[in-house]
């Protein structure tokens, strides 16, 4: 599993790229590093604190001067910059020193050098063969460096037997969202670029046409959501997406989709807020926005992806719910999932692929777009109405035929109609499985990308003899029925999330759960430094 932070500037700045490798289940990016590579003095100074005692510090001795008195680590100084320049010569300067280090690490960790070379050729050779050659020279220079002179230890990974039926595939969260949409049968969408959502739309712009569909880059967020709603109106369930600031702009239209009862998928790849906030950092602070955003009572559905793998599967569920309940469905991901690369068992596409082509068959007499006794199922244009009465979709309060009405009684009935279908969905939702002890002192509750660290915290506490449990909510709105029965089995319910609504001392989901269950034992553990939870932060948070 990888974890990355980058600055929100194209010209660059301090970045980290974290990798955690293991033969078993890798749940989080880990609390402490075993191995730290520092290219610059500032990276050494900022991150030496996250290196385990006894860990290896590999530093570029051309640029980094480590603290001589700090004897906690195995210090390995290699003149990375000057060796790269020496190897490449010419005008390349020190560009390529990351590839040099990759070669070095391949030697230290016994990686498959040939496979890495193939990947380098794939990555750099597409546009320019000489660039790939240069990269390979840098790699080879690193790989051939007499590392034994400076580092006694060598590492290698046990080959793990793969138990599943299907092979593993590797992708990041945004790729999983895009391919999940395709598997779900979604073929149309529109959006405007914004970090960290953008790569989803880049993929869909390339992929949808292969499937006969279309993804449109629009002039702004309002046009994007409107185009997507137009696609859905035309009978093709569509997707739009963005990050917090863009979702703010889309809210009026999403309110229309709620009122007019149009199926729509809205992906929010969250970043740090408010306002422009922390564009490249992680936060889970758009939960209120996506549940409540907009004016009036506008019921909708909000789901949250727990992992990269779940980013794929949650899209299938979002499409199913959007169609069945004719409603906008939000899917929350976040910055950490968007760029995190995970390996997971290949989805069983044969059984998962959906076909959502519009049904243009003629409709019998008496069709009502907004029946009071049924869930709305719209008829797309192009379908003939045999009684000659054509349906109208509207944002005005309306009667069953979609014509405007200011009748107080009707507004009560229609408000209830829109709410009841969401309540009906809640009834069919599965209860989350309790991980750890079935009852006890503390139940951790999480949603979204905190799944891994929370689960690892439960495992860690239980392995050292403690008692701890967790549930993870994929359905954050509506909540599945029966959570209170789970809560009743614990003394305390601690909701861990990356936001700090904070005015009344609880985070956003914690506040929602407290309002829903009126239970003061629901408490909150929040974090807002723009980074994911460390496992130890959760473990320490429990004992507070």
């Amino acid at each position, binding site marked *: 599993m990888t974890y990355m932070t980058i600055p929100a500037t194209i010209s660059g700045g301090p970045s980290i790229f974290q990798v955690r490798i293991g033969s078993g289940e890798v749940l989080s990016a880990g609390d402490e590093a075993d191995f730290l590579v520092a290219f610059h003095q500032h990276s050494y100074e900022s991150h030496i604190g996250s290196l385990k005692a006894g860990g290896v510090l590999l530093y570029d001795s051309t640029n980094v001067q480590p603290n001589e008195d700090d004897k906690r680590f195995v210090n390995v100084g290699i003149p990375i910059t000057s060796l790269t320049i020496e190897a490449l010569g010419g005008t390349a300067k020190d560009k390529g020193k990351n590839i040099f280090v990759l070669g070095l690490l391949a030697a230290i960790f016994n990686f498959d050098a040939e496979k890495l070379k193939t990947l380098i050729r794939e990555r750099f050779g597409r546009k320019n063969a000489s660039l790939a050659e240069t990269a390979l020279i840098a790699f080879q220079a690193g790989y051939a460096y007499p590392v034994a002179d400076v580092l006694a230890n060598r590492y290698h990974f046990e080959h793990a037997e793969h138990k599943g039926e299907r*092979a*593993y*595939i590797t*992708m990041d969260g945004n790729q999983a969202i895009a*391919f999940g949409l*395709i*598997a779900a049968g979604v073929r*149309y969408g*529109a959006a405007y670029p914004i970090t960290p959502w953008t790569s989803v739309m880049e993929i869909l712009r390339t*992929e949808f*046409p*292969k*499937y*006969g*569909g*279309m993804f*449109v880059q*629009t*002039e*702004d967020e*309002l*046009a*994007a959501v*409107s*185009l*997507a*709603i*137009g*696609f859905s*109106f*035309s*009978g*093709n369930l569509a997707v739009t997406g963005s990050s917090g600031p863009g979702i703010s702009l889309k809210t*009026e*239209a999403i309110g*229309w989709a709620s009122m*007019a009862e149009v199926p729509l998928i809205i992906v929010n790849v969250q970043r740090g807020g408010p306002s422009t906030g922390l564009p490249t950092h992680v936060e889970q602070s758009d939960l209120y926005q996506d549940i409540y955003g907009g004016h009036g009572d506008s019921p909708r559905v909000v789901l949250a992806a727990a992992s990269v793998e779940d980013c794929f599967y949650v899209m299938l569920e979002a499409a199913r719910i959007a169609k069945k309940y004719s409603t906008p469905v939000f899917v929350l991901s976040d910055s950490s999932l968007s760029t995190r690369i995970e390996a997971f068992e*290949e*989805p069983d*596409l044969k059984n998962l*692929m959906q*076909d959502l082509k519009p049904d243009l068959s003629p409709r019998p007499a008496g069709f009502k777009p907004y029946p009071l006794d049924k869930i709305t199922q719209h*008829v*797309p*244009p*192009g*379908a*003939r*109405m*045999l009684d*000659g*009465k*054509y*349906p*109208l*979709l*509207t*944002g005005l309060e309306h009667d069953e035929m979609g*014509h*405007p009405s200011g009748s107080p009684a009707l507004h009560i009935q229609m408000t209830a109609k829109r709410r009841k279908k969401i309540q009906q969905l809640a009834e069919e939702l599965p209860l989350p499985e309790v991980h750890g002890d079935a009852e006890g002192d503390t139940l951790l509750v999480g949603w979204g990308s905190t799944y891994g660290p929370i689960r690892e915290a439960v495992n860690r506490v239980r392995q050292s003899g403690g008692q701890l449990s967790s549930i993870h909510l994929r359905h954050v709105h509506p909540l599945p029925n029966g959570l209170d029965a789970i809560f009743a089995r614990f003394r305390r319910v601690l909701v861990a999330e990356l936001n700090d609504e904070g005015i009344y001392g609880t985070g956003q989901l914690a506040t929602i759960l407290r309002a829903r269950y009126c239970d003061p034992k629901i408490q909150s553990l929040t974090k807002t430094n723009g980074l994911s939870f460390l496992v130890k932060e959760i473990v320490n948070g429990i004992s507070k």
Partner: protein
Amino acid sequence: MSTTMTLPAEPGQLTKNALTSDRPTWCPGCGDYSVLASFYKVLEKRQLPHENIVTLAGIGCSSRFPYFVNTHGAHYIHGRAVPFASGVSLARPDLQVFVFGGDGDGFSIGGNHLEHGARKNINLTYVIMDNSVYGMTKKQTSPTSPVGFKTKTDPLGAMDRPVNPIKKLISAGATFVARTHAAQAAHMTQMIERAMDHNGFSVVHVLSDCAEFFPDAFDSVNPRKGGEYKLIEEKKGDQTPEDALRHDITDEAAAYKLADLPFPGLFGVYLQVDRPTKNDLEAGLIESVRGKMAGCSDLEILQQTFDRMK
């Protein structure tokens, strides 16, 4: 209780009766009534399949239009009817997409969408019913209100330069731009029909008087009120000396110049040019990409992608 049945309109039987829906909520004397009548006329004349006609609108008096037309339709939010309609048009080339709206919807809150819908040349017909005032909210300044016009938001008279709708549309890249007046039923019907037949982003700018808040807005072009309704004379290509003086509707610079005449200027087609629509360009993209897929099913395409991620 009345038991009158509306018979289904078989192809070839699309009557005004079959197209009539709710009774319009417009004020007596509103110009929008005649726009509705013209629209019925065009649809009756052309006999499109009833189910393929889509009537869309944003917010405003004129944007109530879809309630008064019995077709598939939607009444969307303020200013965003063009992107909504773009989604419908792009996904469904079998449909005939009409958008109706006012000057606030088109030139103010939705101005940017008008700009980009035109630039992308989305295949749809947009009828902008311009009364130069915000009527539904009861007389505030509109983007086309003339300087000096007194409204509740400009009690001393509007001070900002009004939008020149035709110039805006031409510079944005609309490929069919015409102007008409609600009192000129025959001309208006002709303009809407020509717009409908145009493959691309076609706009009819209809001056449609607000009987309540700006009844004298377009008197200068209304013969019944002593004005003069002057038509654009289009080039006929008959090689006569008079023809040299007539307007070439494919000449963007000439159209732009014509649009600079003192408002409301001339009526008729300012511009009609052929440029690939986004509908065609996207269809071409899909065709070329699908060509490389060698007839693979959706499942096979996604499977191949996953195979590369192993």
